[in-house]
């Protein structure tokens, strides 16, 4: 039995999102035919929402709500799954200059997994950093599909992932209710907890899935003022 999770989204706990978790779950329920998710993983910016309790909402909607973090490093942004007290004691998530190699190694040692996200984005993605710095060691998985990408960025991510043989994940990177679940990760295994998610992420038995609607093309305006 497989499990499909949106591994990257932001609720109103992040400074740049106003989306309530309940509205996310309601939207997934409404759009289940197009976005068949079993749950979401909240990856709030530069923090871990330690005290949030989404159990009542999970019961109401029959969807899983797991908690993780998106932190900022010298190699771009990184999703941290399996955040625990040891990891929080080891790293200041609010620091936007974390050392990526240290984060990857230490998070793994302390029982979690660090997954670099949107590698194709300028400045905050792996691709650009790999041009000038050595490739990171011990990376298991990298986000390939990101719902907030500009044209070409997901393609750049895919190229990098293939070149280095990383496992690939997907997530919507949603900051808006209606964008939840547009990209996700389908796991071969059944997952029902953050420990299960961390365990499966380490196996590599999953693939990114794309639920973005194909929009009808919009014609480019004639370059009237070309001269």
């Amino acid at each position, binding site marked *: 039995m497989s499990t499909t999770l949106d591994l990257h989204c932001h609720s109103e706990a992040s*400074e740049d999102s106003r989306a309530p978790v309940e509205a996310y779950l309601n939207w997934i329920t409404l759009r289940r035919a197009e976005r068949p998710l079993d749950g979401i993983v909240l990856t709030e*910016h*530069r923090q871990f929402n330690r005290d949030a309790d989404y159990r009542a909402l999970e019961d109401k909607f029959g969807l899983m709500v797991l908690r993780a973090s998106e932190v*900022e490093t010298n190699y*771009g*942004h990184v999703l941290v799954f399996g955040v625990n007290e040891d990891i929080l004691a080891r790293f200041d998530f609010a*620091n*936007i*200059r974390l050392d990526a190699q240290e984060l990857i190694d230490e998070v793994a040692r302390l029982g979690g997994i660090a997954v670099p996200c949107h590698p194709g*984005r*300028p*400045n*905050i993605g792996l691709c650009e950093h790999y041009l000038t710095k050595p490739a990171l060691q011990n990376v298991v998985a990298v986000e390939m599909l990101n719902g907030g990408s500009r044209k070409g960025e997901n393609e750049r991510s895919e190229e990098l992932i293939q070149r280095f043989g990383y496992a690939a994940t997907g997530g919507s990177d949603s900051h808006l209710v209606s964008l939840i679940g547009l990209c996700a990760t389908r796991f071969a295994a059944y997952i029902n907890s953050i420990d299960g998610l961390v365990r499966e992420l380490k196996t590599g038995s999953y693939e990114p899935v794309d639920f973005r609607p194909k929009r009808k093309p919009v014609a480019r305006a004639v370059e009237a003022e070309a001269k």
Partner: protein
Amino acid sequence: MAVDYDPTLINKVFEVTDPVTVTPEMIQKFCQGLGETNPLFTDAEAAKKGPYGGLVAPPSFAVTFRNGRHFFQHVPRFGRAGFDAGKDAEFVQPIRPGDKVTLHSHVKEIYEKTGRSGTMVFVVVRSTLKNQNGEVVAHIDHRFMNRT
């Protein structure tokens, strides 16, 4: 490493702008720039029968009021030129022709993050717009992004 600034400047109101009297022409010009056609904003006669009993400015007119140059002398500068990164506007009541609008502004928050443009310092300036009766018409949070 946190952003370096004087924390006492947060929430301090440095300046109240001179009142700007809103004219029907200002509203009309603004509407033309946006291609506005809603009669509540463009047709004084039709607007009389509407919910406001007269012509009002479109809500987004509220974001066009600007702080005086003196305000920014108090705002710390980080890196190169600032860009407008976004706004959060709360529209408390409509702005009408004849209103005399003043801005009461303070620095609400300063924080750092990284994005497509590199390391950025965000300075959030909150402006409260008041009319000639001292009533609040809007609160506007301007997020200025500075690349460092």
